[in-house]
Structure formats: C-alpha cells, structure tokens
C-alpha cells in the first residue's frame, strides 16, 4: 500500500498540503482514463497542471499537443480555431478551472457554433496551483458545468466519482456536437511533466504533425 505522505501524486501532497476541494479523484489518472486512446486526437492544453495532465496521457514529446505556456485563457478559443480548420480531426481542449474562468465567455462563442469535433475537459481542483494554491471561484460555489449548460453546450457532464468516468469518456469522443466535461479532482501537487516551452517550436511541431509541414 502506498505511503500517502511520500507519494508525490497524493491528494494533499506537496504545496497542496492543507487544501481541500469537493473532488477527491487523483488528477493524472482521471484525465488519462477520460482521454483514453489519444493517438487519433489533437490537443490544446492550458497552462501548468492541465498541460502535465495531457502530457502524462499522450507522452511528453507528443507533437499533436500544443501546450500553452502564456496567454492564460487562450486555450478554448484556440481549440475552436483548430477545430474549425480541421473538421475531420478530433480536437480536445484540456484546461483548468482558473484558466477557463478567465475567458468563460468563450463557452458561448463555442456553443453557438457547436463544432461536433471539439470537446473540452476542465480539470477542476478549485485552486490556482501555480501561484500558491489559492482557492478559485469554483471552490467558492461557482459551477462551470452550469455555465457551460447555460452557454448552450448540449453535452455537459460533471465527473466526481470514478464510476462516472466511462460514460464521460464516451461523450468526449462521441462527436455529435461539442462536449464539455467538468472533472472534479482532489487538490494535489504531482510533479510537472517537462516539455520545451518554445511556442514557435511547439507550433512548428504541431503543424508538421497535422499538415505534414511547418
């Protein structure tokens, strides 16, 4: 049995010590389970924790991931532009609660177009992990799934128990219309997964992977 006090992925470990959230799932494993087979999709990740969640699932060097390292709040609209440009490819945006809150109107922009090949996974630990684990708005009553529904996104699911993962995973890849999954996780501080942060390099890698040329 794992010793919780030394497992770097443990809920309440590292800088997350003493922090509480309504979720209890371990984020890396939950995201991996929700994304399933990542070999056929294109990914835009938001900053920090969301980026590492995706790279754990795809492998750190996966060229079909564009990881944002600045421009917080850009992830969902970027995923929209990509989804419209590549209608035959699955596009998955993985973001955190703090980042999605920053440009929450994008859910409305996306919902009115409803691109079938776009899905959004919001990993909600109710804290800003990179700046000292301050409690975010979602830890103070704000419900991003209700906001997504209110914006008009038709396929919306909240996952808080492990048993809810398979249905949500299926919804993310169903392709009937834009899908939104709010994944409630426990507050943890797993090691980040490194990736070259050069945005131009990541842009070229991504375009080579998608278009065959930079």
């Amino acid at each position, binding site marked *: 049995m794992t010793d919780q006090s030394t497992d770097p992925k443990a809920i309440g470990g590292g800088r997350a010590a003493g922090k509480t959230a309504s979720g209890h799932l371990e984020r890396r494993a939950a995201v991996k389970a929700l994304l399933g087979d990542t070999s056929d999709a*294109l990914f*835009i990740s938001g900053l920090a924790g969301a980026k590492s969640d995706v790279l754990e699932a795809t492998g750190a060097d996966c060229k079909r991931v*564009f990881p*944002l390292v*600045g*421009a*917080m*709040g*850009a*992830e*969902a*609209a*970027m*995923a*929209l*532009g*990509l*989804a*419209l*440009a*590549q209608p035959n*490819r699955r596009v998955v945006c993985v973001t955190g609660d703090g980042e999605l809150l920053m*440009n929450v*109107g*994008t859910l*409305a*922009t996306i919902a*009115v*177009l409803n691109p079938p090949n776009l899905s959004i996974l919001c990993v909600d630990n109710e804290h800003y992990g990179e700046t000292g684990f301050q409690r975010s708005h979602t830890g103070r009553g704000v419900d991003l799934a209700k906001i997504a529904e209110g914006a008009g996104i038709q396929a919306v699911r909240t996952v808080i128990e492990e048993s809810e993962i398979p249905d949500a995973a299926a919804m993310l890849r169903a392709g009937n219309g834009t899908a939104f999954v709010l994944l409630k996780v426990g507050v943890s501080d797993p090691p980040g997964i490194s990736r070259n942060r050069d*945005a*131009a390099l*990541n*842009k070229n890698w*991504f*375009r080579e992977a*998608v*278009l065959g040329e930079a």
Partner: protein
Amino acid sequence: MAQQETDEDGAPVTQTWPEELYALLREAEVTQFGYVPDAGHQVLIDRSIADPEVHSVALTTEEEGVALLAGAHLGGARGVLLMQSSGVGNCINLLSLIKNGGFPFLTLVSMRGDFGEGTSRQIPMGQATQPVLEAMGVTCMRAEHPDEVIPMVRAALTMVFQSGMAVAVLLTQKLIGAKPFK
C-alpha cells in the same frame, strides 16, 4: 450593400471598397472571420455570415479572436479579426502568444477616437490603439483614403501569410468618417 459617405456638398457617395475587401480576403483563402459586431465592419460581417464557405465567428470579446486565429494557423487555415479600436484594448496579453509563437496575425481595425472624433469616451483607446499594438509587436498600417484600402490589405495579406508577420490595418476616421460636430 456598400457603405455611404457624403462628398463636400453633402451628396451621398457609395464606397465600394468594403465589397472588394471581402472578395480580396476570400481570394487570399481567409476562411475564419472573428468579430465583435461593429458598424464599421458591417459589410464584411454580413458577407461572412452569408457565405457557406467560411466560418463566421461571433466573439464575446475581441481577445478570443487572437486565440482563434492562432488555433486556425495550427490547423492550416487563415483567419482575420475584425474589431473596433476599443476592442484592441481587450487583446493585449493574448498578443504575447502571437509574438512568442511567431503566429501570422491579421486584424482590420475600424478606428474611433482619431480624426474629428466627437465622442469623448472613444478617445483614450482610439489614441492608444497604434501605440499598444506596436508595443506588442504588431505592425500598423493606416488607411485614410478609399483608394488605399485594397492595395494596403493586399500588402498586409502578403506580409502576414507569406512572411509570417502580425499586421493591423487601421481603417481611420478620415476613411470611414466621423460623426459630425453637433
């Protein structure tokens, strides 16, 4: 439909550049039009809505358009951000993505707060538009006469999509008109 302006005698003069501008953007294979509705871009917006070959993306705030165009580029598509000068102020931090990543970026900005502006609330952001865009590495070109618009946007399209630059074409109030003094 074309925009109306008046000549020195007050007679209406039909401007054709908005229609030509839409055709030019389509000729350059622009397929994503991001905008927050603005009267200055009425023709381009309406044309994009009616055109089944393009994606007409109504944004809730202009900064979404910066990210939209970067995402389009990742997928091999070309886009344009249509906004008023007031919306430029909503885009600043996201322009760091354009600069860091070397993304091609084209915006057409209908200007307020410049030549002959009579509405004081438009002055701060209108006057700041060019300085803040240039501070973020966006090259600005100002169109002041109808005959300049098409050649200027044609040049901008080459600079953006052939040379990978970030360019803003400012459609100034000398071109699109300022509301007359009351």
